[in-house]
């Protein structure tokens, strides 16, 4: 224990702890239970408080910041509604394993349980969506609790941790003790992989004729891209990635198969279907990846490396589980790989034949604007070097297909929870963390409206994000399912008559805005947006209404059920 020797009040301890955790931004919103903290914050210069316009925005910003930088995002909100407004953002960070610490104000300890003004049992509410949470009951425990919260959020599988701080605790004083180390006896994640398992994996890899890497977000949070790249190239093994894994391996490398799963590439899914060895690293066999589990990678011996043992044998029974950190696993594999390997050229040729048979494509017959074109053009103009943030829906899947991700921490997207409204605040948060690369946001017209208030935050702080609004005046992904599986009953998905003029809306917020409705206009608008750095810029891309994302493996289906195009060409627009 390191004692500062000084008597501080709870609010001062809170700020001092954040300082020691090297926090540079707090995304927050003040309120009654936090008045003391905000009184202290008023004079703090080394930690920047970003005022959001809705607490949900704060959580997504913190997560965007965390995913872009690898550092934990920090949220500060008041009790009751302030706290409950963070629930979606916390659940999102939990599903996508993003490190985040959420501090909530709480009514005074003596009033807890009395239905006090702005009281909510946020610890109870967030128990199933946090890695862990705390209610601080004594100011003397505050420093240790904050230390533990950051430790838990960033150690092992990352995740959100919530600390509930009653008003009286923030006002009370004590001598602050800062623990240099943290010891939590019930929390000992396995980071180092068991060497026997690694050696077995190496043998399997050396002898596989048709091996395939299946890479998830765990490789990115473990900063293991270099090891993956070295191993895949050394062994000549193709790599397919999940949505969160994109960028772990360069998308322009011949061994890159792009994304697998529901909207994955034809050749990646065929490769899964035909591989004799599947090496899953930092991925969790999500249902959007596997489809029907019985027919997933039916011929493959399955190796599964994950830092969280609960992910092993959860959805799919694997042959060789290896619990541990992805970087440790891949580095250990590189160490023990035998010098000889099978010839994988026939396997790669087979995959390339599938790639040629069914490449990703889109219609460019008329002069109408298509989302795929916009994304491909942004990919070209940014040379794959942007931090790409998406919202949820069709544009998100097209981003996975048509943006060529070259580096890790380049896609920030709501994968597990699928939270519409995530994109705009997440992009703002990412831009606070990353200043030397452009931050671009692809967002649908539906999701944009869900956290549009944060445009003010971006304008106020002159955050130069490029908001590429993919406006088809429809809830496009729901529309796609309605067309394919629900008798074309477009129930409440047509926003055409009710959407505002987004250019005017953006301008009213003080945000520069453009509109584009054909490919040439779009090219120019993208160029202009990428050159604009005096605050955010929005481009309203008026894309065709009825495009669908293909390929598509219907929910719960097998690879053999994959749809490659609209069944009925009549409905093509």
């Amino acid at each position, binding site marked *: 224990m390191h004692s500062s020797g000084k008597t501080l009040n709870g609010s001062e301890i809170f700020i001092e702890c954040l300082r020691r955790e090297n926090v540079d931004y707090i995304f927050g919103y003040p309120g009654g239970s936090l008045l003391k903290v905000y009184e202290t914050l008023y004079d703090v210069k080394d930690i920047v408080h970003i005022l959001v316009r809705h607490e949900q925005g704060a959580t997504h910003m913190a997560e965007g910041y965390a995913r872009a930088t690898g550092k934990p995002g920090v949220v500060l909100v008041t009790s009751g509604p302030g706290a409950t407004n963070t629930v979606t953002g916390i659940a999102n960070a939990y599903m996508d394993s993003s490190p985040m610490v959420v501090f909530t104000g709480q009514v005074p300890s003596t009033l807890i349980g009395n239905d006090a003004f702005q009281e909510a049992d946020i610890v109870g509410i967030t*128990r199933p969506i946090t890695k*862990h949470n705390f*209610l601080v009951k004594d100011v003397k425990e505050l420093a240790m609790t904050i230390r533990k919260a950051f430790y*838990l959020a960033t150690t092992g599988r990352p995740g959100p941790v919530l600390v509930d701080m009653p008003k009286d605790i923030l006002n009370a004083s004590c001598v602050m003790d800062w623990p240099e180390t943290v010891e939590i006896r*019930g929390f000992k994640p396995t980071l180092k992989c068991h060497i026997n398992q690694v050696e077995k994996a190496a043998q399997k890899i050396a002898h596989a004729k048709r091996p395939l890497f299946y890479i998830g977000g765990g490789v990115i949070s473990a900063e293991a891209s270099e090891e993956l790249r070295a191993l895949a190239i050394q062994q000549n093994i193709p790599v397919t990635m999940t949505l969160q894994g994109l960028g772990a391996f360069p998308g322009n490398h011949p061994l890159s198969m792009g994304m697998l799963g529901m909207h994955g590439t034809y050749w990646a899914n065929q490769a899964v279907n035909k591989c004799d060895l599947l090496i899953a690293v930092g991925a969790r066999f999500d249902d959007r990846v596997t489809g029907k589990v019985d027919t997933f990678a039916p011929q493959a011996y399955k190796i599964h490396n994950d830092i969280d*043992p*609960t992910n092993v*044998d959860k959805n799919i029974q694997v042959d060789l589980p290896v619990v541990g950190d992805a970087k440790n696993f891949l580095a250990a594999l590189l160490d023990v790989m035998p010098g000889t390997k099978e010839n994988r050229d026939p396997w790669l040729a087979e995959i390339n034949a599938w790639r040629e048979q069914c490449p990703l494509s889109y219609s460019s017959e008329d002069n109408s604007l298509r989302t795929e074109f916009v994304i491909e053009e942004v990919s070209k103009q940014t040379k794959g070097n942007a931090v790409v943030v998406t919202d949820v829906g069709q544009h998100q899947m097209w981003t996975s297909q048509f943006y060529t991700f070259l580096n890790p921490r380049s896609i920030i997207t709501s994968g597990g929870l699928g939270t519409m409204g995530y994109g705009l605040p997440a992009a703002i948060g990412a831009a606070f963390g990353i200043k030397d690369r452009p931050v671009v946001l692809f967002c649908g017209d539906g999701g944009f409206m869900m956290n549009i208030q944060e445009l003010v935050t971006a304008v106020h702080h002159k955050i130069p994000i490029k908001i590429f609004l993919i406006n088809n005046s429809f809830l496009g992904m729901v529309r796609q399912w309605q067309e394919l599986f629900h008798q074309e009953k477009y129930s409440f998905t047509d926003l055409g008559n009710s959407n505002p003029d987004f250019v005017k809306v953006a301008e009213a917020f003080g945000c520069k805005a453009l509109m584009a409705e054909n490919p040439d206009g779009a090219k120019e608008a993208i160029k202009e947006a990428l050159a604009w750095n005096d605050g955010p810029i929005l481009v309203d891309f008026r894309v065709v209404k009825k495009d669908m994302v293909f390929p598509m493996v219907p929910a719960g289906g097998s690879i053999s059920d994959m749809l490659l195009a609209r069944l009925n060409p009549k409905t093509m627009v």
Partner: protein
Amino acid sequence: MKHIISVLVENKFGSLNQVAAMFSARGFNLESISIGETEDREISRMTIVTRGDDQIISQVLKQLNRLVDTIKVIDLTRQPHVERELLLMTLKLTKTQQHEIFELINVFKGKVVDIKQKSITIEVIGSPDKINTTIDIFRVYGIKELARSGAVAIHRGE
């Protein structure tokens, strides 16, 4: 199949809730759960009875281990262990059946803890199976009320 799992947790606010919430969030079966302090006042022992195939039980154990306040998780099912449950039960008491009831209490090694004009309260301790049988047998005499503690279990000593 039925499993009995012993879980050592931090003896603090919210630990029980954490475990119970995890069971409901993951859709695991929770037949009984009991909790009490151990020889170390900072640690509580939870005894959980659940059902599931090997794959589900393996998930249950891993999910329990993942909770931060969980210190140790032991599946006692296939290990030598002692398992006990306490039953408290109030029965209707009639002159005609009085004799039979007392006989049965002896058979089940129960104890009378309270007796009134028209009712009798007994306690029985035993394995959950024995408690089930006890309840079945006494049902015909008219059970007014009953309470079960849920199983508690411990590893047999060396």
